């Protein structure tokens, strides 16, 4: 692991889970696979605390375990999975654009909790949505459930592996740790639950939404003891599916930039048709016939079949080679060259970095060198700059050593934490005042009294807080933007190193 990777993982673990989990997590990232007692010894932490830390890390898929021959269990950190935490806002936002607020909260809860049963998730999301609704309105469990089903159907959420049912019935001594398995066919199978109910508000007043006095309501909280209908069936966010979505977005955007809106919509349609059928790492999508594509165009998109065929021909003829023609049946068979597109996106990303860091002249040399191999094959004039092989090695090296990207994100996080710490006193004061105002409002204070409390924060202080908020948001946004660069480069590397 590079220093930058460790640094960034450390920052992320600490921000999300605190000191102890950070200590254990970083230790495992540095040392590799270790059993519990060794972790406890090396980090000088009590075995009990190590267990708790490992529980959190395993719950969030950040650490995995393996049973070894002698019966020892070793724990291993998944560094790349830790870095995915940077992408959580993007996953949540995607769910929001596809499935609106309900989808957003479902994915957010899953990411915050690691794994959840559908029943617990639906209840929690219904409660949260109810909080935001007008007085008297509540969110039906059924509505949340149906959004959940859609997320499962489109593979954005998936079942977690479970304890194999035959495990404990096998002869011999019991396993020190369970083996978790999941059948491919079951991964997106939603259990048949009839979740009936509505979200509940958290009220600080005496009565709750149903008008029952608080004392009586406490008795109802024993409904926690009701049997959970889907006990043992846990769900998690399917990050790979989100990555496929991001990749598709990048491809559509590239086509729109290079060609036009209509071409990009056609490509979007082709990608949508290939969503579930083509594995992420495939070099190209399954061939699609022009007839099929025509039928699958979004309703209201009225171009004639003839015009569609023209667009497809243009796409296939384009020097970028994003779309290829693979046959003539069905009006013409077309594929999207995923490897080629990802390569072009990665190249464009590097060109962008060279351009901004080193200027136009260097960018020209860079593009020339990248194309040189192509030129050599065509036996055109020899622009001897850097040998093609060296250029290719340089390229791969730049791509695989993401250090600059990770370090940049670590720097942004450190600056954000610094800005917050600098204004800690003021932030705490502001929070105290807000809390006082909130409780005064609840007990029905007068406008004048509220005004007085609000004035405890001076105008310059208010300005300072606004500036802080703006800065923190800007730094946050920048982290996400740098992660977008990482995503494009990693997608290219992955697509070229996975075995077909």
């Amino acid at each position: 692991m590079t220093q930058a990777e460790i640094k960034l993982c450390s920052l992320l673990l600490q921000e999300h889970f605190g000191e102890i989990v950070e200590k254990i997590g970083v230790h495992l990232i540095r040392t590799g696979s270790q059993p519990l007692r060794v972790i406890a010894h090396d980090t000088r932490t009590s075995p009990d605390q190590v267990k708790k830390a490992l529980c959190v890390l395993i719950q969030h898929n950040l650490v995995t375990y393996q049973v070894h021959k002698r019966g020892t269990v070793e724990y291993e950190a998944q560094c790349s999975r830790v870095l995915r935490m940077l992408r959580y806002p993007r996953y949540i936002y995607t769910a929001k654009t596809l499935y609106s607020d309900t989808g957003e909260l479902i994915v957010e809860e899953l990411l915050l909790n690691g794994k959840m049963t559908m029943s617990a998730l639906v209840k929690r999301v219904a409660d949260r949505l109810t909080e935001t609704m007008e007085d008297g309105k509540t969110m039906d469990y059924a509505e949340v459930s149906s959004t959940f089903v859609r997320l499962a159907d489109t593979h954005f959420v998936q079942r977690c592996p479970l304890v194999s049912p035959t495990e404990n019935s096998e002869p011999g001594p019991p396993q020190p740790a369970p083996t978790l398995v999941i059948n491919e066919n079951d991964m997106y199978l939603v259990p048949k639950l009839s979740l009936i109910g509505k979200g509940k508000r958290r009220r600080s007043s005496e009565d709750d939404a149903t008008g029952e006095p608080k004392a009586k309501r406490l008795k109802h909280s024993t409904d926690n003891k009701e049997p959970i209908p889907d006990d043992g069936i846990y769900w998690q966010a399917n990050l790979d599916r989100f990555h496929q979505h991001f990749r598709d977005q990048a491809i559509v955007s590239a086509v729109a930039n290079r060609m036009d809106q209509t071409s990009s919509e056609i490509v979007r349609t082709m990608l949508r048709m290939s969503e579930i059928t083509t594995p992420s790492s495939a070099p190209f999508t399954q061939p699609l016939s022009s007839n099929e594509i025509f039928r699958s165009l979004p309703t209201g998109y009225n171009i004639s079949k003839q015009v569609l065929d023209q667009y497809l021909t243009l796409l296939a003829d384009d020097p970028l080679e994003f779309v290829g023609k693979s046959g003539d049946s069905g009006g013409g068979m077309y594929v999207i060259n995923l490897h080629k597109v990802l390569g072009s996106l990665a190249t464009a990303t590097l060109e962008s970095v060279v351009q901004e860091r080193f200027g136009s002249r260097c960018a020209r040399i860079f593009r020339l060198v990248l194309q040189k191999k192509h030129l050599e094959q065509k036996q055109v004039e020899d622009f001897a700059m850097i040998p093609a092989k060296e250029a290719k090695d340089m390229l791969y090296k730049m791509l695989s050593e993401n250090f600059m990207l990770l370090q940049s994100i670590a720097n942004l996080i450190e600056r954000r934490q610094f800005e917050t710490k600098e204004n800690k006193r003021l932030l705490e004061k502001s929070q105290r005042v807000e809390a006082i105002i909130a409780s005064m409002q609840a007990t029905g204070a007068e406008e004048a009294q509220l005004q007085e409390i609000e004035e405890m924060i001076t105008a310059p202080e208010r300005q300072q807080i606004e500036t802080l908020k703006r800065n923190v948001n800007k730094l946050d946004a920048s982290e996400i933007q740098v992660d977008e660069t990482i995503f494009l480069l990693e997608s290219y590397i992955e697509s070229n190193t996975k075995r077909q």
Partner: protein
Amino acid sequence: MAEVKVKLQPPDADPVEIENSKMKGSDNQEKLVYQIIEDAGNKGIWSRDIRYKSNLPLTEINKIFKNLEAETARESKQNPMIQRNSSFASSHEVWKYICELGISKVELSMEDIETILNTLIYDGKVEMTIIAAKEGTVGSVDGHMKLYRAVNPIIPPTGLVRAPCGLCPVFDDCHEGGEISPSNCIYMTEWLEF
């Protein structure tokens, strides 16, 4: 309502055709807005400035934008082949155009023009295609003709270069606790204040 920057895309069809079709059936307000955008040229123009220049209310402007965009979209759905072919220019056509402009004090040959065009290719701004041409076709050399057209980059500037660290000259010397650190970074401070 977010501010947007607007400019005219290189037209997919014959520029004269598009302009005429836009003017057909558009009212004076649309023509005015279109003219304002066109005058801004390649730099584009902020929607706020269009409001000032045209003195039209925001709702009107938004309606006009929608109409103009729809018209362009409608245009481009019609004849993709024709649009594409008309967006190419041969090196001969470019050479003739530059010569007629008279902007060069030195006499430029077609090969000179092609060298300049190559530079633009390595700038990622121009794309070249070679097609077979009949002997004797104007601008053809050895039965081939080089066609060029302007292209857009496939991605906007990448995330890394939009953060201060991506452009920082002392990146390697920077670490928390050092003389140069994220906490005391002047580039970050400037960038935050921007």
